[in-house]
């Protein structure tokens, strides 16, 4: 059910943060919200966008343009130093694993290993998930 999906929670965090930031800056209006969309979290962007638009209604951000910057998940191994990008999670993970990572991206440490040395001890360098990158306001 589209209206129940957890993307709503992610959107709610973003809108609450944007409103608070705007208020603290004494903004008249929020004109743009820039969001990083990391591919590891595999969010449903359509639903996420729908939720953002619903939630910003009747707020200081109601007219804000939302810009998404997509980022592929990139990892770096702490053991051997190898860096890699995953283009398609479906090639290395089961549906169930992708679902767990969808809720908590750090669980990629449970289900993924460094392709070179086999270690779970890597860093998620970029492309983790949803991130508030910038807010443009007018005062």
């Amino acid at each position, binding site marked *: *059910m589209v*209206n*129940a*999906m*957890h993307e*709503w*929670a*992610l959107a*709610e*965090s*973003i809108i*609450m*943060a*944007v409103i*608070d*930031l705007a208020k603290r800056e004494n903004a008249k209006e929020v004109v743009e919200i820039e969001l990083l969309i990391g591919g590891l979290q595999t969010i449903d962007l359509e639903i996420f966008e729908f*939720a953002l638009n619903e939630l910003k209604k009747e707020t200081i951000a109601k007219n804000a343009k939302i810009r998404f910057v997509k980022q592929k998940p990139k990892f770096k191994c702490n053991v051997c130093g190898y860096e890699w990008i995953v283009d398609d999670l479906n090639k290395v993970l089961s549906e169930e694993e992708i679902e*767990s990572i969808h*809720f*908590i*991206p*750090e*669980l990629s*440490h*449970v*289900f993924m290993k460094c392709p070179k040395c086999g270690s*779970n*001890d890597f*860093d*998620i360098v970029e492309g*983790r*998930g*949803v*991130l*508030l*990158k*910038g*807010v443009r306001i007018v005062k």
Partner: protein
Amino acid sequence: MSVDARIYRIKKTLGGIKNIIGVVSGKGGVGKTTISAVMSLILSVKGYSVGLLDLDFHGPSCHTILGIKDLEYEEEKGINPYRITKNLYFASIYPFVKDEYVPLRGKALSNALIEFLSILNWRKIDYLIVDMPPGMGDILLDIVRLIPNSKFIAVTTNSVLSIQTVGRLIKFIIDSRLELQGIIANMIRNYDTRARRLAEELSVNFLGSVPFDADYENTIGNPQSILGTKLASALKEIVERHIT
């Protein structure tokens, strides 16, 4: 931009909870998980609405005590804690990881914690009991940072090794100006003197002792039987006297 948006939703979803109680010790194996789980059962049987949150991501085990095998979360603009009974809710990373190992460094642990807290939907419950991992790392520091109104119960055995580690932790709680409800002495065989002395020395409440109960192990996984143990009776008295 260095604002973590998730923190806003955490404050909101936890905002409706009357009492958030972290069960801590610094020391492992003193009974934090046991006391968290059994205390939650006791409170819920008494009619309070209760949440139990397992934050031992490296070794989640509340579900084992409660005998829950196939828990799945329902999505509702976030995820709903699993409803065990009509007034007992439960959240753990267990359904996501099952029996796989969970090797997370501190930074990842912290990020996982914040993500998890930010997508959970807690009702306006009376108690949220938080089962904390051992140590004084990212999970403890983040709970202190993100939920400054949480209260703490420190668990210790009567062994010097436990006493000294719990002592460090309690000093941290006090210095951080957080509310410590008091100390529970667990797995007591004959004496609880060291635990009582620690409470006195640090001027904190001694909440009571829970005996070592050899029959308890066989009730693990069966909440009804757990409530009949000597362990549960002792904890019930503590709950009635100090928590409710």
